[in-house]
């Protein structure tokens, strides 16, 4: 029965997307154009520069294109589904999360799991096309591929908890859209979505090592393109796992505190 509840909660977003073909077409068009533009930009930049910041053209293009594909994992049109925490807080419907036979923390995690699996299908299909078209390079060895997959999974867990922190912030602040935008911006900038972190100054990369954002995307992508050697992978995986544990404990604490703040209409 628990499995059935979990399945029903996890499939909400994918089902919503599958019943909106125009939205899926939009995702397909946007993803295609974005991949073409990003690959063209980096290829164009490398026209007269064979190596930059220690990265070859192939490494830079692969990193940038994979970053675009990976960013699809959590970028669904959740707002249209009216099931974001900020919308529930705005309309006062967050209270229903506390009236179901499923804890809000579990419901949130299951919804995110469904979204990430659905997003992964898009990313995987995009990766297969890019690989076949020669836009991205294949991993150098089976070991690199294995470590990359493990690192990507850990990175997605870190990303889930970072996004959860954003959602949990809604319980404490009436207006928090600016703070959310700032955190999303920091996540994109410091994870390598805008540009591979290897191109940024040394002080910026040092700063990034103390924050969880680079663990979401920069680490798995750097392992894939060979900027982080396999010998350094255990340390990087351990750091990612450390962030997962730390953020999980913190968000679990926040769920307990958040529950005390929820009141139904009328108090």
């Amino acid at each position, binding site marked *: 029965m628990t499995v059935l509840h979990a399945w029903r909660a996890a499939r909400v977003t994918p089902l919503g997307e599958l019943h909106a073909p125009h*939205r899926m077409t939009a995702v397909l068009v946007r993803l295609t*154009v974005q991949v073409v533009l990003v690959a*063209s930009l980096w290829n164009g930049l490398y026209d007269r520069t064979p190596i930059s910041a220690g990265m070859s053209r192939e490494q830079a293009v692969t990193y940038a294109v994979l970053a675009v594909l990976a960013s699809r994992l959590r970028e669904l*049109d959740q*707002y*249209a589904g009216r099931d974001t925490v900020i919308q529930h807080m705005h309309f006062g419907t967050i209270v229903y999360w506390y009236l179901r036979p499923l804890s809000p923390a579990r419901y949130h995690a299951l919804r995110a799991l469904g979204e990430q699996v659905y997003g992964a299908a898009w990313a995987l299909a995009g990766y297969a096309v890019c690989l076949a078209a020669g836009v991205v390079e294949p991993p150098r060895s089976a070991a690199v591929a294995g470590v990359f997959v493990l690192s990507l999974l850990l990175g997605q867990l870190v990303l889930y908890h970072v996004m959860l922190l954003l959602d949990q912030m809604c319980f404490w602040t009436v*207006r928090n859209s600016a*703070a959310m*935008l700032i955190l999303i*911006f920091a996540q994109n900038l410091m994870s390598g979505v805008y540009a591979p972190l290897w191109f940024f100054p040394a002080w910026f990369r040092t700063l990034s090592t103390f924050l969880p954002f680079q663990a979401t995307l920069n680490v798995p992508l750097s392992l894939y393109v060979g900027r982080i050697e396999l010998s350094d992978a255990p340390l990087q995986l351990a750091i990612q796992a450390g962030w997962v544990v730390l953020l999980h404990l913190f968000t679990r604490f926040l769920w307990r505190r958040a529950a005390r703040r929820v009141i139904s209409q009328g108090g």
Partner: protein
Amino acid sequence: MNAVRIAWRVTCLNFRSQLEYRTEFLLMIAIGAIWQVSVIVFATVLLTRFTGMGGWDSSDVLLIPATRMLAHGLFVLVLGRMHGIGRFIQEGQIDVYLLRPMPVHRQVQLQYFPTNAIGDLTVATGLMIGALSRSHLDWNAGRITYFVVCLVGGMLLEAALFTAVASASLRFPTADYWSRWLEELLGTFGSYPLNVLPRAVGGLLTFGIPLAFVAYFPAAVLTGHGHDTGVPYWLAAASPVLGVLAYLAARLLWRWSLDHYTGVNG
């Protein structure tokens, strides 16, 4: 005159309402600034790591993001509420606006004060000062006038793009998805010389999604790269005119879409 007075009073009240949540107010200014700083960071990274961009030197390249940012800041300040119209439609706000004795478009623009525009414009002005101080161009009256006209044209072109998406949102609320993508595209690919891209891709960003006309073509004409843009010189130079025409067309589309708006209950 009465309409202007009402618009001004509503704007002042909106500004005061934004001040009610002081932290959010300051963060909104910060977010405007931070988004724009991201463009500067990316441009700086590219300029320092690669030998120029598309044959442009760094001072000329900087004029593109500076122009785009200023045009964008003005758009956010004056006409930017078109960007979030999907939410107004979802929440049924448009139905309320239709009952009031004020044009719906004006009511949308007076929905709230765009605090983030303060941050946008502050950073854009800073970048423009930086770009101008590095510039070797002779900033005579003609060039300054053309530049100001280009800023207005860029603002109107961006407004036209978002108004077109907003018009689509009136029929298909999820079309709002495209406005976020459009903003992302403008922020990244609207800030660099497009001749660094393959011709077909540059053509897409010129004739498909005309973001080249916002800042790239005006900056190319001002810096003497107007003949190397891949389009006739006169077309690149006429970018501000295209902005005006596109905005007028977008407003007609908005009016037509509003006439055919049926609301959530049909």
